[in-house]
């Protein structure tokens, strides 16, 4: 099914534009009604739009929905409904969103001439006004548990008040066990105390205390005891206003200073805020795919801000590059199954493997965390020192202790000979860069030593692999012969049997002088041979295909019926009677590893050419073919290249 997308809408509209003159004056309102796809949502849509040069501008009511009785009665139905209106491509007016996940007990009843099916599941419902693409006025988002078509329980409910997209005054978020109440400043900044009330206890059970948007502390009550979660940098003067979103919540985890006493993960408020943010994100995704919406509500907070200067930015980039190369090297060795086996029997390989592992754990893992902080946009919200100490609680040692693995005795520690050139003191990005350089340099030192060890072993392994492949190819050929020989004409059988004799002889010769190079050559030869054998086995079916292509259904006036007539018989008979026997003879006379591919290609090219000639004017060719009896002459007439050594 083709879903109507914005591009399609444009195409459809463009056709209308070209065919209906009045549309030329533009801005003629049109309506669409039919299948429509919006991101992952596929359903039926009704809406109005007009065209502005190249763009489809939504204007007027919009409705899109989906529900399937079949799916519901089958297993489960995922329904949705979006309804509202657009003004000049901006969502405007009252909007409603519904998302359902329903199952049914498959029982139906007829009530008032309607079939009724009771459903159970979860229904999400969001309602509110939008002005110029931004939420405005009260909005609610509810998630209800439905049992037998009745609301059984409200799983989630958030009520907020917006002014042009900015949350105002107080808000309330409820889930099954808790109610969260919070406040915003006029500019949308979180302010004062956000409190969580548990339905099981009296009074507050958690508080987030904001001051001008900066989270000061979180108080969590546990069995009558209050514990504070403290954050680094809440006394800093430099702050940045950010959205209260997933990245912010992640930042909080990072900024928490007293992780040892209580973990932010214990907070019941955080998941509620995250859940609410996700629901609004879901609506924003839908609206922004439709028109010019910026629906995502701006719940704002201030975070401590330590901007990176240009030097630091460059250093971070370098660290990131070095980390990438270093990780590639270490991953290669750590994931090498061959090395995994080799280190069991080779002490030096074992030591080097241990060094790579230690390098990866000591340096690369913390560096990876640091790069992730940068990618997630958290890096600038924490002091450099705090980040460093979080990643490297102790100054990392240049001398890496190699832990004994797999029962092998501990080896001597690994250290770069010029370790002194690297300065690990300090907590700045400079130090980070020194660490990443040291890690990369160490891995580069280990790499050639380990590679050498692996490559000696590799040769043996490769030979074994090649031999396995050779045997597999040989079996493939044998299997092919067993399958097709009984049904093939004698000439084909002789050709295939000859191929088998030749390859068997080659395999015999190889087994007396085993080396990688000749194994590789023989494998190539085998692959080419098997391809040719397949081609030969398929010749009868190709002939049939040609015969079918060269057959016309013609009307016979005397019988008043349709009959098959073979046309251009000279071409098909040249193929059947001259070329095929010639090729089969060639297989028996000239097949060797060098010419085999060429012969296979030649047969393929000939067949393709014959099939191609069906639809071409071949009067002259047919006349010339009448006299041509020599296969080479026929090939020349057909303009198919011949094998080079045929000229000899």
């Amino acid at each position, binding site marked *: 099914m083709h879903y109507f997308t914005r591009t399609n809408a444009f195409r459809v509209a463009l056709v209308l534009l070209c065919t209906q003159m009045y549309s030329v004056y533009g801005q003629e309102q049109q309506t669409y009604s039919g299948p429509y796809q919006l991101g992952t949502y596929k359903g039926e849509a009704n809406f109005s739009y007009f065209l502005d040069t190249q763009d489809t501008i939504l204007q007027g009511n919009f409705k899109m929905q989906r529900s399937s009785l079949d799916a519901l009665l089958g297993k489960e139905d995922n329904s949705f409904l979006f309804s509202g209106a657009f003004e000049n491509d901006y969502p405007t007016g009252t909007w409603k969103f519904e998302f359902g996940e329903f199952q049914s007990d498959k029982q139906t009843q007829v009530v008032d001439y309607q079939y009724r099916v009771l459903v159970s599941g979860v229904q999400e419902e969001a309602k509110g006004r939008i002005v110029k693409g931004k939420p405005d006025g009260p909005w609610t988002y509810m998630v209800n548990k439905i049992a037998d078509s009745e609301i059984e329980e409200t799983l989630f409910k958030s009520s907020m008040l917006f002014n042009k997209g900015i949350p105002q005054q107080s808000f309330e978020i409820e889930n099954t066990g808790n109610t969260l109440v919070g406040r915003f400043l006029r500019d949308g900044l979180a302010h004062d105390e956000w409190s969580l009330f548990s339905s099981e206890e009296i009074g507050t059970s958690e508080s987030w205390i904001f001051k001008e948007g900066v989270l000061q502390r979180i108080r969590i009550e546990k069995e009558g005891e209050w514990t504070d979660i403290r954050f680094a940098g809440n006394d800093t003067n430099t702050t940045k206003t950010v959205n209260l979103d997933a990245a912010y919540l992640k930042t909080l985890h990072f900024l928490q200073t007293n992780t040892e006493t209580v973990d932010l993960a214990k907070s019941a408020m955080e998941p509620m805020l995250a859940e609410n943010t996700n629901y609004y994100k879901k609506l924003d995704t839908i609206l922004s795919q439709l028109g010019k919406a910026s629906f995502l509500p701006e719940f704002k907070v201030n975070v401590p801000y330590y901007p990176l200067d240009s030097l630091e930015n460059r250093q971070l980039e370098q660290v990131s590059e070095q980390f990438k190369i270093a990780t590639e090297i270490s991953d290669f060795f750590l994931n090498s199954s061959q090395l995994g086996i080799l280190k069991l029997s080779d002490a030096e390989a074992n030591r080097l493997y241990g060094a790579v592992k230690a390098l990866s754990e000591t340096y690369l893992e913390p560096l990876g965390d640091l790069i992730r902080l940068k990618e997630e946009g958290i890096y600038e919200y924490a002091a450099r020192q705090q980040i460093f100490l979080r990643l490297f609680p102790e100054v990392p040692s240049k001398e890496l202790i190699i832990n004994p693995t797999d029962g092998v005795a501990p080896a001597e520690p690994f250290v770069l000979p010029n370790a002194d050139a690297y300065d690990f003191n300090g907590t700045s990005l400079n130090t980070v860069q020194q660490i990443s350089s040291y890690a990369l340099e160490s891995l580069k030192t280990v790499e050639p030593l380990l590679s050498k060890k692996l490559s000696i072993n590799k040769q043996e392994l490769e030979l074994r692999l090649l031999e396995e492949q050779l045997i597999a190819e040989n079996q493939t050929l044998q299997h092919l012969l067993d399958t097709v020989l009984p049904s093939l004409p004698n000439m084909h059988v002789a050709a295939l049997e000859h191929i088998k004799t030749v390859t068997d002889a080659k395999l015999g010769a190889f087994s007396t002088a085993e080396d990688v190079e000749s194994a590789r050559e023989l494998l190539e030869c085998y692959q080419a041979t098997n391809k040719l054998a397949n081609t030969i086995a398929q010749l009868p079916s190709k002939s049939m295909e040609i015969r079918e292509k060269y057959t016309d259904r*013609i009307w016979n*006036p005397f019988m008043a019926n349709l009959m098959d007539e073979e046309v251009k018989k000279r071409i098909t008979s040249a193929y059947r009677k001259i070329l095929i026997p010639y090729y089969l003879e060639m297989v028996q006379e000239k097949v060797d590893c060098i010419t085999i591919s060429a012969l296979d290609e030649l047969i393929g090219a000939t067949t393709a050419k014959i099939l191609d000639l069906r639809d071409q004017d071949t009067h002259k060719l047919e006349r010339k073919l009448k006299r041509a009896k020599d296969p080479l002459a026929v090939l020349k007439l057909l303009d198919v290249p011949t094998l080079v050594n045929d000229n000899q």
Partner: protein
Amino acid sequence: MDRFNKSVLYIVVSMMLCVGQFVRTQEGGEGVLPEASVFTEPKTQTWFNTYGNIRISKRFFWDAQTHFRFAETKETPYIGQLAQIYNRHAIGYIYSKKINFSLGGVLRVNFNTNEDSMDRNVVPEWRIWHQYQFAQPLFTAMIYHRLRIEHRWTQSFAENSAFIFRNRWRYMFRAKVPLNNHKLEPNTLYISPEAELIMQSGKAVVGSVMEDLRLTTTLGYIVAPRLTVAGGLMYSQGQTLDNAGIFNQKWTLRFHVYFSPDFRKVRNKLPAIHLND
């Protein structure tokens, strides 16, 4: 296209009904009826007929038939002497794979095979003919109904004899049954029984309305989609024009070659097999 086909069908059917009424008629002879029908001794004839069906366009073909008909004489029994050369031509219209119509003319050249006759040796005979042919598959066989109407002007060998006009009304039923195959296709031998009743009318026809009843069995072989050969034996009887009480009888050996070349360019041929589908 269907509408066009239908209108063509109406036109030819109305022609079939009307043409006969506008043609010139002539006086004919009259004999004394015997008390009982008299059946003459059967004569033998040999026919060599060629049937060409040359495709002109998607729906039209040229029906070109040349027949050489030998009749026995006292001197040359069995095969006989050349008695008539037929040149039968028409433009045919393919209404569908199973229905076609033809309209055309015949020049039959009659040779005087009466060795004792002092009359002219050769006289022409003219005809306008139209034909409506319908085919039906029946199990592995095909059956055919052929309606043929001829308006003929004939004259006798006698010097200065006038043309007489008659209409001929012919219906033929024929079947073709494949013998060594489950359908009629190349390399198939088939047997074809056929029966044709030829009625005639016109001022010259007094009582002798049944001109000929022909019963034939033919053995044919489809050599290629465009070439078929056949041979058979026909028994026929019919009232003589002079005397409705006298019936001629004939045994005829018939040999046929059917060919249907198509000289059109390949690209024009292709859609031709699909007429209505």
